């Protein structure tokens, strides 16, 4: 996925000479080709993220199209106010790239792990949020970034989990990718690193529908409504806090217009306690396939009809009438 990002950035820069890259002294080897092809458009702003984001705003006001690269723990978290006031308030075309989102930096602890970045940005007006699952989605997302007329956050998480798509999908703002169709009781909605996990889990529940959500803001409300209306429960997976991310966004739509059971699987309001491999840390947060399967079984168990043994639909209309 990182190679796809590098390639897409170089392609975008070759097509649009207004594109400049700002980095907060991060991105070792990621920008070698960019620096070779357009060396004068590579700006290392130093370990000074606040200024970097303000400078990006000024460059955008001056007619440039800045891409700002940092670790997700710093861009957006450390510079949230600069993003709000300098960029979003004026709706400036700045692409913010947050690398290593989630618990990718599994050995470095809380400072370098970012499991609240989507929640922080989702409340800001004007900004769009993208979260690709594989190299193909990254290519498509980078294409959306290159054409964007306002601010975008490109969330880059665990990048070596294999492909979800066989070729680059056509992506649009506010549209998701339906990877599996089915009429079973469960629909799965996942983003970024959790899409491969969703596909693995879906096999355990026959008839599952699976969506990849590369666009977190705006979300695909039509897809959510479809999933809610067609299935008895929706399981949302994200390598992010269950508060304020994709699970919350899905629950908001369900709550507004298509009530159903929504199971939010993600980081449960806590920091990582220990360090270790990425796989270890995902287990610690109960985000591995086995742990999630157990969570989902627990979630759907009380939904079983006592006689038939099938999931039943929540009778919201009756409640409303009462």
């Amino acid at each position: 996925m990182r190679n796809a990002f590098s390639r897409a950035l170089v392609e975008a820069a070759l097509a649009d000479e207004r594109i400049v890259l700002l980095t907060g002294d991060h991105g070792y080897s990621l920008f070698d080709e960019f620096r070779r092809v357009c060396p004068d458009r590579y700006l290392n702003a130093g370990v000074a993220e606040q200024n970097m984001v303000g400078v990006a705003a000024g460059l955008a006001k001056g007619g440039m199209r800045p891409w700002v690269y940092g670790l997700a723990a710093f861009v957006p978290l450390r510079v949230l106010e600069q993003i709000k006031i300098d960029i979003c308030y004026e709706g400036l075309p700045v692409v913010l790239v947050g690398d290593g989102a989630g618990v990718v930096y599994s050995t470095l602890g809380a400072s370098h792990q970012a499991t609240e970045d989507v929640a922080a940005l989702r409340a800001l007006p004007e900004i769009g949020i993208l979260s690709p699952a594989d190299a193909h989605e990254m290519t498509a997302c980078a294409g959306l970034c290159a054409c964007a007329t306002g601010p975008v956050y490109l969330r880059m998480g665990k990048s070596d989990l294999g492909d979800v798509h066989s070729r680059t999908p056509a992506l649009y703002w506010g549209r998701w990718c339906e990877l599996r169709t089915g009429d079973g009781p469960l629909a799965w909605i996942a983003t970024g690193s959790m899409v491969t996990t969703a596909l693995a889990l879906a096999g355990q529940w026959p008839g599952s529908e699976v969506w990849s959500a590369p666009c977190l803001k705006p979300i695909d409300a039509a897809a959510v409504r479809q999933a809610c209306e067609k299935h008895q429960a929706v399981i949302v997976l994200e390598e992010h806090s269950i508060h304020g991310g994709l699970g919350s966004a899905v629950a908001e739509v369900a709550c507004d217009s298509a009530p159903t059971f929504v199971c939010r699987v993600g980081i449960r309001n806590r920091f990582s306690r220990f360090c270790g491999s990425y796989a270890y840390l995902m287990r610690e947060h109960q985000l591995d396939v086995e742990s999630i399967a157990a969570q989902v079984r627990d979630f759907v168990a009380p939904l079983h009809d006592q006689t038939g043994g099938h999931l039943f639909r929540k009778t919201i209309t009756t409640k409303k009438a009462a």
Partner: protein
Amino acid sequence: MKQFDARRLRKTVLEMAYTGSTAHVACAFSLVEILAVLYRSHLRLGDGPGWPERDYLVLSKGHGVMAQYACLCELGWLSEGDVGRYFADGTRLKGLSDAHVPGLEVSSGSLGHGLSVGVGLALAAVRRGSGQRVFAVVGDGEINEGAIWESLLFAAHFRLSNLMVIVDANGYQAMGRTCEVIDLGQIVDKFTAFGLETREVDGHDEQALDRTFGALARHPSRRPTAVIAHTVKGKGVSFMEDDNRWHYTRLTQETYAAALAELSAEQGPGLNAIECGVA
């Protein structure tokens, strides 16, 4: 009467502050001469606030925005109605600088933001070869912010000689004297050490400001420049000068009338015109 007359600008500020029943009168009064000289003689503004080749006046010290509004009135970019209905429901002029207002380049007031954006504007101008300049006004209280020093490092490293940082050094910040809150020491030494070609000047002496701005614009070094303008908070009205209560205090009918009388007097106390002989 000449354009951007300091006394008239202060009267506009006073009128806005009274109309809007707003704080920050003293913050605006300290930078009146700085803005007057820039607007009168140094900013190339073309045919209006949307002229793409204009020089940028970046008011990073957003709390002084009424002084900039007063200048925009002189330019005809704001109307009498804007001034007369300051802070009325549904009006567009806020109590801090806001980039949605034509003529204001940045949104600042959450301090330490404007200078970075100004640095970006300066860099964009250099890359386009447009010849545009950026004049960024920061407060001495504002430079407590770490982002300011990040910006100075960046501006010096990228040799943004089209950037001039002007410090409105009125010696106060919200809760007291800067030397008592967070002592800045010699600001000129710090800016020089950060790589800026730096001068000090009496920030109410229009001729000195004019000479300094002009000299720095012609300076041959490929470095950003800075002017530490020593000012008096509340300058122009005797009972506001060097009294930090006027960071917060709203005008009453009595204080408004007394201040207006001073600013309207032929030779009132504390008037710039007398001190620097440019009336």
